[in-house]
């Protein structure tokens, strides 16, 4: 199987699994326990915290483990909003954010907050000037993703973070897709909060982390035993956290070479597919694009059948985001780019990982034109 759906999830690195295994069975202690088993587990969590912090230029005390990217986004946005309500009630985000951000913002609207959903341009970019114009004296939070999960657009987060800071607001970025695929430094990039997930970078599912800059005013959204310094109660997923630390270390070590390799494969797919197939369009930009993301729109092709036909040929791809694959509604990202409902139906996302190679790309490009042509005939086109 050729796996080109790494935007949905990535295969677990066997080295990560090996580090995790003892924490499922031998070192099973609860990090809150005082005995040796508990202390051992607590040490493992702190070691992982150091690894995660190092990868984004943060201090370990600024990293909080969660159950994944969605929970990290929820804590960041709800936690900042409810803790800073006396300062203001306005939040700025954009139309192509992940639903973990969009639906949290919609919930906050129901709770009385005001949310500005900034539009994006035809390639999915949010303009820092638009953020600046939308800022008011009531703006407490700006939340713009580092890179889009469907079309790969890398946002100018450093500039947006600067605008937020100048306007007295906090800046949160959903970096779930960006982690390990572009350099991120929370100080340099003016980031106050950053959400990440382990399973997008060859770690396990069910674990993520949230960076929260020191002295940020935030409150928990889940209450209980006070783990993670009171911000995220619940007994720690020790094996998962160990896996996240291991995965993030491995990805960071080889990131520069991996980005170069994946960018080469990405550009090869984009250029050759555009040249060899009629009625195919690239969604998202050519530059400032995630190194592992390709997103096409095919005229007169049903996206689901395209994915299923490729699957039969041993290639795993996606119609868009994994979350939307079983939704009948068109992608909110493509709609925000100006695509019609019908145009959204012929989408194909190819998302690479660092273990993909040129032979896999060759095979994919060799079968794609025929698959598209067969589906168009079948549809009567």
């Amino acid at each position, binding site marked *: 199987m050729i796996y080109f759906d790494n935007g949905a999830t990535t295969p677990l690195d066997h080295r990560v699994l090996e580090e995790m295994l003892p924490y499922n069975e031998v070192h099973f202690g609860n990090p809150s326990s005082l005995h040796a088993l508990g202390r051992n587990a607590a040490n493992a969590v702190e070691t992982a915290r150091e690894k995660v912090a190092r990868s984004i230029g943060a201090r370990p005390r600024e990293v909080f483990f969660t159950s994944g990217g969605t929970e990290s986004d929820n804590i960041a946005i709800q936690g900042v909003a409810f803790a800073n309500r006396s300062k203001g009630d306005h939040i700025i985000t954009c139309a192509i954010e992940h639903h973990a951000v969009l639906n949290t913002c919609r919930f906050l609207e129901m709770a009385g907050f005001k949310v500005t959903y900034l539009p994006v341009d035809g390639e999915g970019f949010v303009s820092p000037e638009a953020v600046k114009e939308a800022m008011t004296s009531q703006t407490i939070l700006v939340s713009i993703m580092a890179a889009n999960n469907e079309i790969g657009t890398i946002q100018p987060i450093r500039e947006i973070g600067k605008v937020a800071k100048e306007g007295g607001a906090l800046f949160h970025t959903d970096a779930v897709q960006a982690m390990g695929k572009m350099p991120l430094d929370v100080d340099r990039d003016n980031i106050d909060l950053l959400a990440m997930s382990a399973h997008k970078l060859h770690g396990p599912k069910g674990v993520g982390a949230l960076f929260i800059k020191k002295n940020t005013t935030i409150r928990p959204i889940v209450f209980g035993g006070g783990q993670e310094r009171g911000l995220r109660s619940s007994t720690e997923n020790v094996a998962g956290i160990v896996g996240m630390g291991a995965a993030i270390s491995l990805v960071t070590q080889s990131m520069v070479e991996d980005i170069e390799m994946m960018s080469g494969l990405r550009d090869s797919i984009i250029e050759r597919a555009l040249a060899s197939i009629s009625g195919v369009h690239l969604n998202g930009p050519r530059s400032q694009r995630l190194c592992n993301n390709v997103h096409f729109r095919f005229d007169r092709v049903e996206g689901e059948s395209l994915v*299923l036909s490729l699957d039969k040929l041993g290639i795993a791809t996606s119609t868009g985001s994994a979350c939307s694959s*079983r939704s009948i509604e068109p992608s909110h990202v493509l709609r925000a780019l100006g695509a019609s409902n019908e145009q959204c139906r012929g989408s194909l996302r190819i998302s690479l990982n660092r273990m993909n190679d040129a032979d896999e790309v060759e095979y994919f490009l060799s079968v794609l034109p025929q698959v598209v042509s067969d589906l168009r005939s079948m549809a009567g086109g």
Partner: protein
Amino acid sequence: MKSEAAIPIAVGSKAPDFTAPGDQGELTTLSELVNGKSVLLIFYPQDWGWVCRTEILEFQSRQNDYEAIGVRLVGLSTNLVVSHGVWSEHLNLRFTLVSDPPGQIAEAYGVLDTDEDSFNKGRTKRALILVDQEMMVRFVWVTDDPWLEPDYDSIFNACSEALERSVSPKASAARIVEGYEVASQR
């Protein structure tokens, strides 16, 4: 901007015949399916959607009940055979899904979504149309809301009663199923 809404086929009308590929690519003809049986055409917007999945599996769980009153189940959407085939296998379906990519069958029955504002435009609406052995439409249920599921008990009872009634096209009318939309009368 709304284009003129399609009007669903009326109870008492002659059912338009069709031949189209089933989920294994086999040609499926309505007039052959109704040989000695009635057919419930289950139009749904899209393979893989969770409402569609729930609906299709609910009908499958009631397949024996429908067979007991002489009704064969057939699903229809604009998805291609490729999608139907994998979805049918995934759900272990025991009835055929017909592929109608241009939406011609849906159009003939007045259940194609043509609303410019609908994200479902060009796909079939969620609709249930009962065709009897004489190729006569005996019951119609249709909704413009793709998230709305039919009330399965009421639909079964309405189909059962529609088939029990004497065949008198002029006199027959769509049964009002409580709380649900019923086909317009021509």
